[in-house]
């Protein structure tokens, strides 16, 4: 299995460090429709940074340099989070067994508030671990907020 490295450019001007992650084929996921608003990026690496606790990830685009999303896995979600996948959603990632699925939420880190993060619970990412197909599902109605505030 080929291992390739992804470099994240230093963001802070004063920082000279480049973050490098090793990824293997099993870390690569295919979003056939991209993420909402980012339809051109299809291939992503799901990375768990060494310093992150369980449940925190970076979804790093392999098609668009510099595009990445912080993710939170469902193990850290509020316990009342339940929804039903539509047949269309199941078909689009060929999900036949719910045990093959993993669930993530895109996290936004506000810059003006230091003690909270926001989880997008209206559009979770569903990953089929078996075939590495993934999709950002849009849940109908007002069941769950786009910005679910979590105090940290």
């Amino acid at each position: 299995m080929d291992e390739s490295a992804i470099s994240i450019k230093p963001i802070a001007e004063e920082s000279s460090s480049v973050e490098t992650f090793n990824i293997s084929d099993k870390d690569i996921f295919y979003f056939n429709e991209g993420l909402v608003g980012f339809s051109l990026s299809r291939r992503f690496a799901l990375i768990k940074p060494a310093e992150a606790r369980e449940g925190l990830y970076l979804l790093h685009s392999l098609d668009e340099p510099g595009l990445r999303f912080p993710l939170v896995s469902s193990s850290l979600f509020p316990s009342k989070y339940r929804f039903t996948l539509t047949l269309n959603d199941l078909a689009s990632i060929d999900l036949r067994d719910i045990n093959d699925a993993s669930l993530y939420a895109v996290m936004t880190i506000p810059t003006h508030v230091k003690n909270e993060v926001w989880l997008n619970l209206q559009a979770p990412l569903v990953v089929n671990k078996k075939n590495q197909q993934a999709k950002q599902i849009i849940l109908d109605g007002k069941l769950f907020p786009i910005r679910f505030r979590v105090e940290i």
Partner: protein
Amino acid sequence: MLLLTRRRHQSIMIGDDICIQVLGIMGHHVELGITAPKNISVHREEVFLALKEENKASAQTQWIDFKRVMKKIKNSKKGI
């Protein structure tokens, strides 16, 4: 922009397999029925735009902020 006038129960075809039917009209509200192939996503525009903005905001996360959050969550007893 193409302008079409439709009555209740009349439809518009987009391509071969997308059909939008006017089901009802109630004052300022129009009820539409949409039939489309499984691989076509259909959403209210405002929902789509809001989600696009939120993804964009997430994508702008600076590494330094992500590191700060990772550290804070790791040290936090209450978790996330």
